């Protein structure tokens, strides 16, 4: 017997607003100062009322557009009712039957060149408020739990996928692609340590019956996975556990209700959460304190036109237009939207994507890392780098010289912003321009051969490496000579 793994995800993403979704309190992450970012509204005080943050709604719509969702022209707010100490009103403002978006998809990119992407359908995305934070007494002996409501009311988009994922690795790669998209759209910082992106995974198996039927096992929801690795681990663990469970009990989806489990990263295991006495009854109903939101087609097309290009589209373009490998394209995309923009500027100037990619992923990244610079602090603007690389590809300078110039110009505490002129001046100053005077090169070669009979002897007796030392001496004598041409001419003289 074998089985298919069926996985659907519910992802909660914190939107990058200054203030909470229904009040003016700051959303800054501030666990050191609990209960300092609250007001009557997010404390749920009697008589306080919510007013929708326009930016939160716009960011939510952008998110859904990035996920290729339909945006209905009418949406409304509902109350989801349950009692919990981190939920001061006794209900969460969320969206039930008319979410602001539905029916989208996000493709998991191929893992290697030649693979095809995997489409994951998005059932819906809705906007809601986050709860506060419960801090548990770690001593384990009844000091009680402490509640911090700083986070209560933070805007979240909840993204619900169809159960289209078939293994733990895809689930992880889906989340990685989702994170990249959200960061590109600028809708979330996706900071997982701060809980900006959290995931619940619904997992079960479709066991292949002997007669070809598929028998679904009970669905398990693993709650609150706050890292991609944990998500992958939790799903892997669940698959094994559920398979074992099925072999032992034969229980199918019809025999047992959906249960929720937690994940213990230290032990790499999921564990049963205490079951409620009865199935949850959230008693959703429209929030009478909030009014609906309506949008027009014109508004939607305006927003759509302002949407930044998705990583998926860029990845494809980098491969098509600049001839990058999937791997190189991904390395660049992973550095963020500014870096990808920078790459595009350089590559379109030099018409050599591969060269630009190599420079960016090696020289540029090394300097950014060493100097702890962001791209905005980096003193080498894209047109300058484009100029430098063009000099290499048109053989005005050597690659080695280009690197020397590059390193020279980013030295110092506060290097000046590099321009094409400063590059040219540096090359001139250091005499790095490629020497095309073959006479001078040949004279230098003859001179070096004359002064190094031992090396010449070695070379002629078959030690190819001996040529290297000779080339080095020629290069020293003729600054700016093209090593390739020096090598050719030297070999000709040695052999000739």
């Amino acid at each position, binding site marked *: 017997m074998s089985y298919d793994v069926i996985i659907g995800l519910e992802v909660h993403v914190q939107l990058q607003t200054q203030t909470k979704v229904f009040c*003016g309190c*700051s959303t800054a992450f501030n666990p050191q100062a*609990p*209960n300092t970012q609250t007001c009557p509204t997010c404390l749920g005080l009697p008589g306080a009322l919510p007013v929708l943050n326009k930016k939160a709604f716009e960011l939510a719509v952008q998110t859904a557009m990035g996920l290729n969702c339909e945006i209905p022209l009418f949406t409304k707010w509902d109350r989801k009712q349950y009692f919990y100490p981190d939920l001061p009103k006794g209900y969460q403002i969320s969206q039930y039957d008319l979410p602001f978006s539905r029916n989208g998809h996000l493709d998991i990119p191929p893992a290697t060149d030649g693979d095809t992407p995997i489409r994951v359908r998005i059932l819906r995305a809705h906007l809601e408020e986050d709860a506060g934070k419960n801090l548990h007494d770690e001593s384990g002996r009844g000091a009680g739990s402490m*509640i911090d409501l700083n986070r209560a009311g933070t805007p979240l988009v909840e993204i619900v996928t169809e159960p289209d994922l078939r293994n733990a690795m895809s689930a992880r790669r889906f989340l990685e692609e989702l994170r990249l998209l959200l960061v590109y759209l600028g809708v979330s910082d996706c900071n997982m340590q701060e809980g900006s992106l959290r995931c619940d995974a619904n997992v079960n198996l479709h066991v292949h019956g002997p007669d070809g039927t598929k028998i679904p096992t009970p669905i398990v929801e693993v709650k609150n996975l706050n890292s991609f690795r944990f998500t992958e681990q939790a799903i892997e663990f669940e698959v094994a556990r559920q398979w074992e469970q099925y072999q032992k009990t034969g229980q199918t989806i019809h025999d047992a209700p959906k249960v929720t489990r937690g994940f213990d990263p230290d032990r790499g295991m999921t564990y049963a959460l205490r079951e*409620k006495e009865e199935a949850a009854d959230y008693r959703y109903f429209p929030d009478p304190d909030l009014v609906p939101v309506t949008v027009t087609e014109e508004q939607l097309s305006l927003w759509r036109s302002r949407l930044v290009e998705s990583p998926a589209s860029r990845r494809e373009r980098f491969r098509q237009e600049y001839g990058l490998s999937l791997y190189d394209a991904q390395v660049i995309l992973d550095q963020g939207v500014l870096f990808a923009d920078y790459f595009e500027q350089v590559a379109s100037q030099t018409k050599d994507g591969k060269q630009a990619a190599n420079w960016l992923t090696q020289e540029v990244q090394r300097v950014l890392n060493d100097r702890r610079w962001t791209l905005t602090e980096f003193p080498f603007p894209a047109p300058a780098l484009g100029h430098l690389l063009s000099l290499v590809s048109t053989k005005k300078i050597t690659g080695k010289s280009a690197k020397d110039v590059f390193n020279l110009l980013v030295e110092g505490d506060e290097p000046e912003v590099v321009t094409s002129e400063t590059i040219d001046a540096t090359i001139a100053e250091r005499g790095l321009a490629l020497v095309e005077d073959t006479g001078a090169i040949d004279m230098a070669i003859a001179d070096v051969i004359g002064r190094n009979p031992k090396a010449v002897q070695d070379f002629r007796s078959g030690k190819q490496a001996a040529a290297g030392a000779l080339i080095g001496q020629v290069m020293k004598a003729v600054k700016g000579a093209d090593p390739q041409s020096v090598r050719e001419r030297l070999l000709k003289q040695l052999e000739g």
Partner: protein
Amino acid sequence: MSLSAKDVEKVARLARLRLNETDIEQYAAQLSQILDYAAILEAVETEGVEPMVHAIELANVWREDEILTSLPRQQALQNSPAQDGKHFVVPQILDAS
């Protein structure tokens, strides 16, 4: 529409209300009476009528994403039955969510 004591207990659990037995019996009778009365609504033709959630129907009421002053912590906690100067304090929360 008659509500049993069991129905009442279920609703009370959902609403987090501790009731005694007399309460439960009384509520069962009273709620049944009220729901019986409410059954007159079944006579109304409501086909195609949109539910009316708001008394005055507005749309698109927003605020800008601008920070307003939050309450000092002391005021946020001032009405709490139990607090430690920084947090609201409740009995140990177990796993139930």
